[in-house]
């Protein structure tokens, strides 16, 4: 299938500062791609390049097979939703939805149809005559999406559309966006630095850092087989636990501890040398279950965070701190001795120098 969006050797600099470096990316028809990364890594910049809001320094951009590198934003067949929504404050919701269409000379009846459809999908029919100031955060968000929706385009671009909202609303709207994608089935690129959003929404996630894409893959791939230590640490909360040590025939040795890595699926065959051994908190079992796992350790509870559904416990194992996720009903006290166990097959091991996955 022809990709919906292709980015070829994209370079972008602000003066002397190079922000995006020789970036390549293909996004399939109807795919939901999330750009994830910490602040300042170039996510918005990339999105703006795709939208045509920034003039790129070098490279090419194709949308729907057409080279749009030097097209006007409005001619690229994209719709965009901004973090601050950027609604036109003095126009009604309807005005916000129709302003672009009127301007493009779309016939009146057609405009009415499209607005009606968008309003129906987003359930904002009762709001059409209000001004943005009279809307709640979630409603504004929906109107902002509506403005992209009425444009009837193949590609939607979202720049952290939920980050100004509170947690509850964020969760609700996340679901709505997901459903919208299922309904419309058009290509969406979504920028966020919230990994829950990324994990739940994405067909594929691109993890960015310093203007480069570190890993591009499905949420599952990224979660279970992070390509490097940065990605492994970035994804998951609490973060992956790391042991600093050495890999040899006997398995993995970190100071006083030594355990087997049998069952670990090495990316390019088994390697030896200094390495990071990483295991996620939820892959560490406790109590009776721990006994059944290949690797067993024991530690003292140092901090307990009951989340209701789960309880996060930080253990002190030697001089290491290890996070463990326990069932919501377990309520260890601080100082409790806890047995843990895990299966190295579910771990991630990284080369000490390159920090690449082994």
């Amino acid at each position, binding site marked *: 299938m022809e990709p919906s969006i292709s980015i070829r050797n994209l370079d972008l600099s602000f003066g002397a500062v190079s922000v995006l470096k020789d970036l390549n990316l293909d996004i399939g028809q109807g795919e939901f791609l999330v750009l994830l990364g910490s602040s300042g890594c170039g996510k918005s910049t990339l999105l703006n390049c795709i939208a045509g809001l920034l003039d790129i320094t070098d490279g090419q951009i194709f949308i729907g097979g057409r080279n749009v590198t030097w097209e006007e934003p*409005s001619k690229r067949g994209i719709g965009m939703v901004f973090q601050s929504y950027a609604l036109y404050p003095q*126009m009604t919701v309807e005005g916000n939805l129709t*302003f672009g269409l009127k*301007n*493009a000379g779309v016939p009146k009846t057609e405009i009415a149809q499209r607005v009606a459809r968008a309003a129906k999908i987003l359930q904002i029919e009762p709001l059409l005559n209000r001004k943005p100031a009279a809307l709640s955060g979630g409603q504004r968000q929906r109107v902002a999406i509506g403005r992209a929706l009425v444009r009837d385009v193949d590609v939607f671009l979202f720049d952290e559309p939920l980050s100004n909202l509170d947690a509850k609303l964020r969760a609700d709207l996340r679901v709505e966006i997901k459903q919208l994608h299922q309904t419309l089935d058009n290509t969406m690129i979504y920028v966020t630095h919230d990994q829950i959003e990324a994990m739940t929404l994405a067909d594929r996630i691109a993890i960015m850092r310093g203007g480069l894409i570190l890993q591009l893959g499905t949420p599952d791939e990224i979660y279970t087989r992070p390509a490097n230590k940065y990605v492994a640490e970035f994804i998951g909360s609490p973060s992956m636990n790391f042991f600093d040590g050495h890999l040899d025939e006997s398995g993995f040795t970190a100071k006083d501890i030594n355990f087997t890595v049998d069952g670990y699926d090495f990316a390019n065959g088994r390697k030896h040398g200094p390495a990071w051994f990483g295991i996620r908190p939820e892959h560490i079992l406790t109590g009776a279950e721990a006994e059944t796992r290949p690797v067993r350790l024991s530690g003292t509870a140092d901090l307990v965070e009951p989340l209701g559904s789960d309880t996060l416990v930080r253990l002190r194992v030697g001089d290491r701190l290890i996070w463990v996720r326990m069932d919501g009903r377990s309520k260890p006290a601080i100082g409790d001795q806890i047995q843990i166990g895990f299966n190295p097959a579910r771990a991630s091991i990284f080369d000490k120098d390159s920090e690449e996955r082994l």
Partner: protein
Amino acid sequence: MSTRPSRLFHNMNAKIASVPMVLTAMVVFLGGSIWTVVYSFTDSKLLPREKWVGLDQYERLWGTNRWLVSIENLAIYGVLSLIFSLVIGFVLAALMDQKIRFEDVFRTIFLYPFALSFIVTGLVWQWLLNPDFGVQNVIRGIGFESFTFDPLYDADLAIYGILFAGLWQGTGLVMCLMLAGLRGIDEDIWKAARVDGIPAWKTYLFIVIPMMRPVFITTLVIITAGIVKLYDLVVAQTGGGPGIATEVPAKYVYDMMFQAQNLGQGFAASTMMLVSVIIILIPWAYLEFGGKRRG
């Protein structure tokens, strides 16, 4: 302290610090205005005196051609100067906002006339517009013998000559205010408009300008306050002439009080100015300062 402290001493320091403001507002502006209004009903000549004459001063005021001309001039000058300074100021600001180079240089050039007094402005423009030395002479000098450009000497045009100078002096400040306002607009709005395919001029007209309401209001206050007070420029540039073609209310007031030595008449004219200002301002002031509180 378990009892509720007295309301009076609440925020005591703030109240103490506001004493100059309260005094100025009450004694100078309110007191002075009331005093002026009261004495406008007297037949005061050189010195204020309580010789009541009812509405005589007002009758005479509205029967005086010069006052009517003054009002008309102020209206022409005021409306045009508002429109042009807002339009020119905004357009300049919009141009300056295009991430241009040498912004500092241009800004300084547009702003420097504001550093000069109206007296100086009036003088320079009187000269530039003088048909014997100024632009007309120069253009005739290069061959266009019949070129005429002497607004200050043509009663129908003189007020526009003053407008010319007034705009030269004042638009720089308006530009600065507008520029500051433009800089305050969320970048995303521009991006949204571009994605919507809205041409720049439409974006300015239908989106950006309505969003800059507070800037326009502050600007409006500053410009209007200047317009009502228009005096020095006229005196320096035309002295109210030719004839009474460029008379303005403030000058009428001043001349009545000090040249004609008819304080009562001057006060009546001041009162009329005051009343019109208040009629324009009260609703606005109520909306701006009375109604809303900072949350």
